């Protein structure tokens, strides 16, 4: 693997510039209705997001279902073309890349999916699945290709003799390892992990988290780690972005976010997460926010969280709070933030 590790270095992004920069990104999906299926509105899945991902870090992205976190992740690696805004990767604008230039880009980024049952083709062998990116990008042929596939399986902790088996022969955790091997096949620098452990059994989750962490330090990977479970995100991430209805509400290093959340949404999200310790649970003060997430088709005016926010005032409906600095490394989009 020394040779592959060396190749990695050549792909590495060594400047201090962010590896990925997202500016004012918008992804809207049309909503069609009526007999003529005319577009009657848009789902504002991602609605003006600014974000930087530094080389070698894990940026955690948390939020509830429908907040746009997966759409953001897919747009960053250009599986979706954004409606507006830009995505910059290694200093180059990749927002509207197409054809061969987009294909080349795909050698540098990969994705790990949530559902290891749906994301592996049941008719392909493990070898075919892991080998496909190698073939598509012409990275290796024949014997070398076979060796590479076996090596990848070894790296993710699978027995290389499993190359001729099919996905149904494996458990969820092993399938997720196959998915990770496939993501690593192109030797990417950047991987979007979209809820990679939420479909797995509790006792298996830690194995996959540890694997992802080991791979990161071994191959100097950068992760965008998307999940709804804040405990897992806090464990694996250097910084965490909290998303709500298409917008970033708060951004901070994990520990800081946990100790001193400034956005009321972050506060209520933190207090909603059960801690596996009865002594702590007994004493905890819960801020239970009422109501459901508003519709992303007609998001509320001003701050999107205001319809559920215990601190909302008139101002919150009139103006969109910008994402502002709250001390070193912490940002929040709130006019009436929580006290530090």
């Amino acid at each position, binding site marked *: 693997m020394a040779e592959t590790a060396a190749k990695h270095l050549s792909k590495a992004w060594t400047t201090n510039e962010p590896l990925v920069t997202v500016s004012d990104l918008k992804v809207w999906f049309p909503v069609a209705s009526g007999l003529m299926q005319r577009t009657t509105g848009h789902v504002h899945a991602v609605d003006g997001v600014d974000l930087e991902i530094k080389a070698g870090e894990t940026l955690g992205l948390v939020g509830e279902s429908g907040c746009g976190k997966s759409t953001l992740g897919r747009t960053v690696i250009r599986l979706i073309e954004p409606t507006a805004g830009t995505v910059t990767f290694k200093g180059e604008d990749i927002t509207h890349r197409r054809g061969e230039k987009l294909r080349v880009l795909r050698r540098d980024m990969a994705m790990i999916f949530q559902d290891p049952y749906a994301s592996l083709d049941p008719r392909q062998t493990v070898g075919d699945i892991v080998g496909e990116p190698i073939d598509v990008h012409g990275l290796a042929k024949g014997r070398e290709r076979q060796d590479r596939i076996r090596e990848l399986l070894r790296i993710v902790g699978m027995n290389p003799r499993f190359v001729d088996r099919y996905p149904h022969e494996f458990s969820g955790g092993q399938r997720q390892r196959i998915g990770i091997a496939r993501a690593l096949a192109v030797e990417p620098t950047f991987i979007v992990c979209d809820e990679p452990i939420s479909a797995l*059994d*509790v006792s298996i*989750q*830690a194995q996959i988290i540890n694997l992802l962490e080991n791979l990161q330090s071994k191959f100097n990977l950068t992760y965008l780690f998307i999940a709804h479970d804040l405990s897992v995100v806090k*464990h694996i991430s250097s910084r965490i972005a909290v998303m709500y209805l298409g917008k970033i509400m708060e951004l901070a290093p994990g520990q800081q976010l946990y100790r001193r959340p400034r956005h009321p949404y972050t506060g209520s999200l933190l207090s909603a997460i059960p801690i*596996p310790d009865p*002594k702590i649970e007994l004493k905890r003060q819960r801020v239970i926010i009422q109501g*459901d*997430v508003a519709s992303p088709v007609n998001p509320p005016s001003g701050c999107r969280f205001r319809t559920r926010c215990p601190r909302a005032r008139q101002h919150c409906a009139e103006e969109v709070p910008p994402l502002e600095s709250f001390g070193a490394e912490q940002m929040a989009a709130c006019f009436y933030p929580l006290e530090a």
Partner: protein
Amino acid sequence: MAQPLLEVDDLHTVFSTKEGVVKAVDGVSFELYPGETLGIVGESGCGKSVTAMSIMRLQRPGRIVGGRVMFKGQDLTRVSDYEMREIRGKEIAMIFQDPMTSLNPVYRVGWQVAEPTRLHNSFDPKRALASAVEMLGRVGIPSPAARQKDYPHQFSGGMRQRVMIAMGLTTTPQVLIADEPTTALDVTIQAQILDLLRDVNREFGTATILITHNLGVVAGMCQRLVVMYAGKIVESGPTADVFANPKHPYTWSLLRSIPRLDAEQHEPLRPIEGLPPSLVDLPTGCAFHPRCVFRVDRCSRDTPPLAQVGSTQRAACWVTQAGTELKGG
């Protein structure tokens, strides 16, 4: 302590499959006391849902092949189908994980919530609907009189789960079985539903069995818990004691393997190695022994019974029954 309300005694439920007989529930015993919330914790396939289904006699195609479920002097595994229908939904109610598939999409919500009182309390439709509307209001559905006319698809996931809870409560049952009631929900909605279940427990005094894989949920909701692995109870006891001082290596390892929100610094997780066993091909002896860091020779030969370990807990482990403390790096 008071008399138990519900007593499950050496329950065995099996499924016949192509690969052989699956012992989904393999000798499970526990008691539920009035007013308490008991947690059943375990991973998928450990038998926690089949246990609940067997109590309700909804285990088909599985078969109850042994044991008793005592409720008010009757053995629920032996009462007639007719008698069971009188108990199910009236004295023991159940709420399910997925509120979308467990509500009927073609009936109005009010009609569905009113069904138990129409059937069990012989309320006329009008009175049943009135009590359904009242219950919908009590579980936190805004403007229940108007919303009762809506269909399930017009409700959000959290609201549907409230509807399910309302349906379970209309007959004021003595036992409520909640099978992963918040697993399909977002965390802020989960917090709302757990809060509602706490209120229900306080207000109606309903004894609750809460089935979940989430140790955090158990920590905040249950006074006592049982931990299941491969069809058996491996540990039981007061929640505080089990969390503070687990007596079964599975519980011990599971608690150490999950990342905690309140962790002070980053430490690598300590996963449980290996996979949960296949129920058609269980290891000999203790089913957890291939993954256990404390195993001794005997563990692969003899199956340990669930026995008293310490003053308040029970564990099915040769190691802790011999007095060894679970410790490790």
